[in-house]
C-alpha cells in the first residue's frame, strides 16, 4: 500500500521556489508503484490523483488488504537537501491513567472501552510496531546507500498517518521543499523507487516468517 501524503486542498509543505509536497509525493509513489509492480508485487495507492483522503480513510483502505505493508510518502520543509529518512510509529510507554481522571478537562479524551479480541482504532498499529521498526531499518539502510548524507538508522516518531494501520507501516520523508530547483526532488523518484523495492524484497521473508 503506497500512501502519497496530503492532496486536494491540503498541499502539505510548500517551498519558495514552487515545490509543492502533494504533487511531489504523488510522483514518488507512482514511480515506486511501477518499480514494485515490475518486481511482481501487487500495489494499491491511497490516492491516484489530487484527492485528500482522511487519515482514517487511508488506514481503512490499508486495513482491507491482507498481508500488506504501508509506505507513506512525505517531503520535509527542512533538513539537508537530498537526504531521506524512514520513520516508524512509537507509542508512549507510560500507562494512560489520566484521561478519565479529570472529566472537567476537555483536552483529555477518555479512551473508550474495547471489547475483548477487538483492536482499538487509535492504537491499531501497536501490535505491529516491532515489524514496522524492522521495515524502517531495512529501508533506511537502502536509503543511506542511495542518498548521501542520509542517516543509517531509522527514526521512531509518532507520525499520525501510521497510527491506525494494522500492518507494518512506515513513512518516508525527503528533504526538502526548500531546494533551489524543485526538479531535483522529482529526479530522486527512480532511485527512491529502487531503494524501496529492494527494501520491500528484503523485508518480505522477515514478514512472512513473523506471520
Amino acid at each position, binding site marked *: 500500500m503506497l500512501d502519497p501524503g496530503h492532496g486536494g486542498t491540503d498541499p502539505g509543505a510548500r517551498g519558495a521556489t514552487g515545490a509543492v*509536497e502533494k504533487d511531489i509525493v504523488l510522483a514518488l509513489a507512482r514511480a515506486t508503484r511501477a518499480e514494485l509492480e515490475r518486481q511482481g508485487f501487487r500495489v494499491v495507492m491511497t490516492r491516484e490523483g489530487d484527492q485528500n483522503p482522511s487519515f482514517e480513510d487511508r488506514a481503512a483502505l490499508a486495513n482491507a488488504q491482507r498481508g500488506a505493508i504501508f509506505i507513506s510518502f512525505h517531503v520535509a520543509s527542512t533538513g*539537508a537537501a537530498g537526504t531521506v529518512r524512514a*520513520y516508524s510509529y512509537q507509542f*508512549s510507554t507510560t500507562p494512560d491513567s489520566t484521561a478519565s481522571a479529570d472529566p472537567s478537562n476537555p483536552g*483529555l479524551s477518555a479512551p473508550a472501552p474495547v471489547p475483548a479480541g477487538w483492536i482499538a482504532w487509535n492504537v491499531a498499529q501497536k501490535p505491529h510496531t516491532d515489524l514496522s521498526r524492522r521495515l524502517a531499518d531495512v529501508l533506511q539502510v537502502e536509503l543511506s546507500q542511495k542518498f548521501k548524507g542520509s542517516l543509517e538508522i531509522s527514526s521512531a516518531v509518532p507520525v499520525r498517518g501510521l497510527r491506525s494501520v494494522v500492518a507494518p507501516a512506515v513513512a518516508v520523508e525527503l528533504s526538502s521543499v526548500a531546494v533551489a530547483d524543485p526538479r531535483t526532488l522529482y529526479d530522486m523518484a527512480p532511485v527512491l523507487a529502487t531503494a524501496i523495492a529492494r527494501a520491500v524484497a528484503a523485508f518480505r521473508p522477515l514478514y512472512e516468517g513473523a506471520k
Partner: protein
Amino acid sequence: MSRRWRIIFALLAMAVVAGALYVRALRRRVVRMAESQASEEQARREVVEPPITTPTDVRMKAKMFWISATAADRLEPVEVEMPLSADPVQRSKQVLHELIANPPTPDRRTLPASATLLDFYILPDGTAIADFSDALANETPSGILSEEMAVDSIARTLETNVNRLHRLKILIHGQEAESLAGHVDLTGFYDLNPPSPPPAPLGAATPAQAPAPGGGLTGSSAPGKLKP
C-alpha cells in the same frame, strides 16, 4: 580629452557615487526595518506574555533545546542564565517562554515566534499539560522532521529543567489536536524522563540499537524521545 568627454565622465562618476550612496542608505533602511520588526515582536510579546516572576525565583542556568548550530536536523542544548521559580508550573512556563522568545539566532528557532503558551498545569501523576495558541499549529513548518523537532524541543526542555514530570500532553487553544502541522501526532502523550532501556545482550546489537550519528536527539536510540 575633449570638454564633452570630461563632462560625460564627470556625470558618470557622479551617478556612480549617487548610486553607491543610495544602496548604502537602502541597506541601512532594511536593517532598521528588521530591527523594528524584532522590537515590535518583542513589544507584542511583553504585552501578551509579560515576564513570569515569582517570589521563589533564583537566577540559574537552564538548558534550552534549540536547533543545532552545526546540523539543521538536530537539537542541541544551550545553557541560558535566567530566573527560575521553585514552583514547577511557573518554572515550566518560564522555560517554555524562553524557548519561544529567545533562540540564539532565528535559524535555530524550533517554535514559531508568534506562538504563545496559553496555559500550563501539572496533574498529580506528573502529566504536564501545555496549551499553546493556534500559531503553534499554523506556523510550524509542515513536515515530520520539523514537527518532531518542535515537539522534541518542548519535551526535552521541560524534562531537563523541571523535576517530577513524567509525560506531556500538548493542546492547541485548549483542545486536543490531531497533529501539529499535518504529520506528528498530538492525540497522545509524550514520555518525559523515560526509564533507561535494559542493556542489550552482547552481540545482539541491531541497526535500531546503534547510536544516532552525531548523538542527535532524533535518532532511534535517543533517550526520552517522542512517545505519545
